[in-house]
């Protein structure tokens, strides 16, 4: 079982608010992986939209993304794409 960790930057102008957070949770569920997002000392479950929103990740925030599970490499690839897009480019 793999475990990958990467620092990713939120580039979306409005930050990681409800709609992009919802899309992110969707991705996590699609890959069936365990994800932890960490901002400073705060770590939240990647499946918890409330947790993600509570991070208050605005544009430019660096998040440590830790992915665990069989599909971890593929999932991380998708996450990187997710983080590199503006909200309008995201398809749920």
């Amino acid at each position: 079982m793999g475990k990958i960790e990467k620092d990713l930057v939120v580039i979306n102008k409005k930050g990681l608010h409800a709609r992009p957070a919802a899309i992110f949770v969707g991705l996590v569920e699609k890959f069936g992986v365990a994800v932890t997002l960490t901002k400073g000392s705060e770590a939240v479950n990647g499946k918890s939209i409330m947790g993600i929103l509570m991070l208050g990740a605005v544009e430019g925030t660096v998040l440590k993304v830790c992915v665990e599970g069989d599909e971890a490499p593929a999932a991380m690839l998708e996450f990187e794409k997710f983080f590199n897009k503006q909200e309008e480019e995201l398809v749920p």
Partner: protein
Amino acid sequence: MSEIVLKGIPAAPGIAHGPSFILDKGEFIVPKRSISSSEIDSEIARFEEAINNSRREIHILKTKISQDMGQAHAQIFDAHLLVLQDTTLLAQVSSGIRDTKSSAEYVFFTVIKKFVEAFAKMPDEYLRERASDVSDISKRVLKHLMDESKLHDLESLQDELIIVAHDLSPSDAVSMYNKKIKGFLTDIGGRTSHTAIIAKSLGVPAVVGLKDATLRINNQDYVIIDGQKGLVIINPTVETKELYLKEQTKITASLEKLDDLKNLPAQTEDGKTVSLLANLELSSEIPAVRKFGAEGIGLYRTEFLYMNRLDLPSEEEQYQAYSQVARAVAPFAVTIRTLDLGGDKFISSVQIPKDMAPFLGCRAIRFCLERPDIFKTQMRAILRASVHGRIQMMYPMISGLGELRQANAILEQVRVALRDEKIPYDQKMKVGIMIEVPAAVMTAEALARETDFFSIGTNDLIQYTLAVDRVNEKTAHLYEPAHPGVLKMIQKTIDAGHNEGIHVALCGEMASDPLLAFLLLGMGIDEFSMSAASILTVKRMIRAVKLQDAQRTAYEAMQLDTGQEVEEFVGAQLRKYLPS
């Protein structure tokens, strides 16, 4: 914690102490309810069911929105759905129910509140607004967990509390008729604000115009209200508490003494009898009306039948309500004021456009003349009820003869219809008008010839005469009942009414102040209507004075130049007769 004293405007007398409750507009009130160990599992199941039902609703909404407006608009509902399957959230609620043995709605409410508060504090504006998304979702769930009608209902509060609010709207009033409330504190408002009216009719103290009480006081802070001086003491010391407890005992004793006056007539020493009546909002206040020995109802504010509901009250429902009051008050009369909406009173069933200056907008009689359907229904109900006691009717905010004639023409149509349908009603029912608009005062002779009585509504008359918004805290100090301009308006109305041989009543907070009531007695008011709790204090004044002294005082007061001079002079005169 040190003692903090806030100063506001005294709005209702008395002393109260106890824990505070900050009433947040639009927020749901979810009472703490304990459950037994055996109920834990079913309570969790109830919570899960509420979540499932809410999800189902959101799915339906999402489908509809994406069909109607496109998929992009529906995306936000994905976020809402995710919140409702959020493991962190759901786990916190389930374990909360188990650990604290509290009801699902209370635990859910507390958990959500923590999230909402955290969002509200976020520095980024866009993220901060997520707070409203989350409270939106939580309201949906709470509606499945609680009886919807209870969501804003203060009745569900369990402890005796002191209510702290930015302002109380008239529609809050309905839920305030609750013995558990010990007093009111508000940021804005003046002596005649609705908070004052509600507090007086409940017989509890109130201090208004405190500016930032909702920020300075925390939920559950222990506070003392001094309704006489307009003070609020937050976290009082032991000494302060003792001082106020003694004061409270004194007040109770003097109230008991007043009680002896209940069955005595309101007659001056030289034999002039005055009628002292009560103002009424809800039929649930009738016991208080009796308790204070009111000789009828001088102002029945019917708006409250229309508030806090989504539909309009039917003719039958109104008929029942008016009949009940008429029977309860008999043999005394009840004066029903027709619907006085607008200004600061709104209802859900009818959209009233928000005017730039609501007190000058389409309110009261103006609204009723625009909506004869609503007006006629009320008139039919009042006329039908008139056979069950002594009912009088009056129109609010008449500004001239044209409006009075229009209203009477509609009334005539309703009478004819009832006659045709052979439905009985009191054919001699008196129909009067409220004098609240300066233009009505200036044309009072003409109005008096076409109406059965006047009732001066001083709260609005003062507001319109002095061009002072009585809801605006910045102008509250300009609201002067004893202003010579106001007194001349009142005198002109009384004289016009008496010249034409009709009764002139006065309903408004002015009547409940013994000093001003002494002045008004001298000016010739025939009938005073006020909050029931003030009646005995005013009666005590009337029984201590002579009409001729009041008349002489009024005559001299009318020669003075400022409101302050009037109050000082009348106060000095009254003290000669009425030892305090």
